[in-house]
């Protein structure tokens, strides 16, 4: 496999605040990586560094390029949706297509037209006349018509209703994703994307808390639902997190033998959200 992104000891300071604190990771081709973290964890700063929108310390290579110094070359092969509000409100749909077609060597106008024809977005409308969901459809149609190697999505479905959110991700998979392409996504609505992710990364206080493929996550982490004496016994296996649900204990274990736990109660693969909470609390304890 080839690494699309390689970060070695990357840091970004704002005064004395370390927004990104000495992180190292790599992203392989054909993966869908979810970058999960609370507000102010450094997610957006890290994405900006990847996109060449901000400089940083350490070694950062994206598609073999220095993102800050070679931003124009990089943008021919990267797309990003930073927030649903970024399309200029004054522009007409047809003008937007004309512009992207003129400046982007990897944009396919027919492909964008085809994707747009499946929506209610009309060419003569201005962006300000479209609903929020339609603006996102428009943006995604443009992005999906660009033959880019890496797609970066920062809270792409913020402020959309549930129908559009679901549709966004299913369109993303259907129209955009293939083994030649890679997606990096951040969102607060983890539960909506966890079934499409191939990899997950937790970032808290500028540091990476977890960086693993999803299959490893389901192998290494297990959630046990137990009560009474079984819960007491389970506790001796040192769960990384414990919470109460309807009078029972839900304990999250890392690397503990499943056969030992299976005797004590029901086992589940933890959701990303629960795992995140456990890791963050465990890290701060």
């Amino acid at each position, binding site marked *: 496999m080839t690494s699309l992104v390689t970060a070695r000891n990357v840091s970004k300071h704002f005064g004395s605040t370390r927004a990104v604190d000495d992180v190292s990771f790599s992203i392989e081709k054909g993966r869908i990586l979810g970058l999960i973290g609370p507000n102010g964890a450094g997610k*957006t700063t890290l994405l*900006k560094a990847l*996109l060449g*929108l*901000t*400089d940083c310390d350490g070694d950062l290579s994206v598609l073999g390029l220095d993102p800050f110094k070679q*931003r*124009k*070359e*990089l*943008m*021919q092969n990267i*797309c*990003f*949706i*930073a*927030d649903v*509000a*970024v*399309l*200029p*409100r*004054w*522009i*007409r749909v047809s*003008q937007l297509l*004309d*512009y*992207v077609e*003129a*400046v*982007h*060597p990897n944009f396919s106008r027919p492909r964008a037209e085809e994707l747009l024809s499946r929506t209610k977005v009309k060419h003569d409308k201005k962006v300000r006349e479209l609903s929020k969901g339609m603006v996102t459809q428009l943006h995604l149609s443009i992005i999906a018509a660009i033959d880019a190697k890496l797609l970066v999505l920062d809270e792409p479905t913020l402020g959309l209703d549930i129908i559009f959110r679901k549709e966004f991700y299913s369109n993303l998979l259907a129209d955009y994703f293939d083994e030649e392409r890679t997606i990096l996504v951040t969102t607060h609505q983890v539960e909506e994307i966890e079934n499409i992710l191939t990899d997950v990364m937790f970032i808290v206080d500028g540091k990476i808390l977890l960086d693993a493929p999803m299959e490893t996550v389901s192998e290494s982490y297990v959630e046990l639902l137990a009560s009474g004496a079984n819960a007491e016994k389970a506790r001796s296996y040192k769960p990384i997190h414990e919470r109460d649900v309807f009078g029972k204990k839900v304990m999250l274990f890392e690397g503990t033998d499943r056969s030992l736990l299976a005797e004590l109660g029901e086992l589940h693969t933890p959701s990303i959200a629960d795992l995140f909470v456990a890791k963050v609390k465990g890290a701060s304890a």
Partner: protein
Amino acid sequence: MGNQLALIKREIWEHRSIYITPAAIAIVMLLLALTGQVAISALGASVDLAMMGANELPPEAHKAMITGFVAGLGSIFVVAMWILTIFYSLDSLYAERKDKSILFWRSLPVTDAETVLSKLLVAIVVIPLVTFAAIAVTQILSLIFASIWLNAEGGNAGLLIWQALDLVDIWGGTLIFVLALPIWLSPFVGWYLFVSAWAKRMPLLIAFLPLFVLPMIEKIVFGTAFLASAFFERTASLPLFNIGDNTFAMFELEDMPFDENMISLLGIIDLGKFLSSLSLWAGLIVCGLFTTAAIYVRRYRDES
């Protein structure tokens, strides 16, 4: 530079005032011409004389009168052009930050230098060219209206107007003027672009306050008026004419201290004087520095 055409088109889509303003002025002027208020009063007494068949003006003076009248139609467009340039440059890098579309624009393979350059080009080339087109159309239509009126009143428009009209001279002179003026004033355009890229809010105030406050401070501290003259005399004087440096010389031909029999726009324009003016090149350097600073700010400032 292959992106420049698309970038400039983009600017015109966003800032429709670039063509709406001159078009609106043209329409108002033509309506006034239609009701006779501009064309007729400008042609003035000589029209009456001509209609009575008593046009005794020598051909040179006749041509001077027509040139002065037709060229003068452009003056209001030039004033509007400069106001438009100020508002356009101040808005060009500010609006995209205010509506956050800057993140979308920067997600495409276009450099910050290309983007800022396209805005500079619109300010000092595109706006003047659109203005010139509006002036030319207004001049032609005004002359046509005047001709129809003259003929209806029994005069001979062919003889009175068209025979004495030298459009190559008028349009050549006007085109050079509308292009030279923004280049001469380019240090201001550079400053406005920089403020537009840099100001967190109220770019208009931030752009204009120093133009008044700095000369005042200079006057109080040093007792000199270098900045005041640099800022204000630059607007009032333009080293383009061989009849003095009055910026509006072209539109006030009748007041000029030279032989009115010789009036020709290309005749009063001295490009050699303009291009060899040190002030012109010093101004272009200032414009370049501010433009570079604007690119730098757009590139390096974190907008979140």
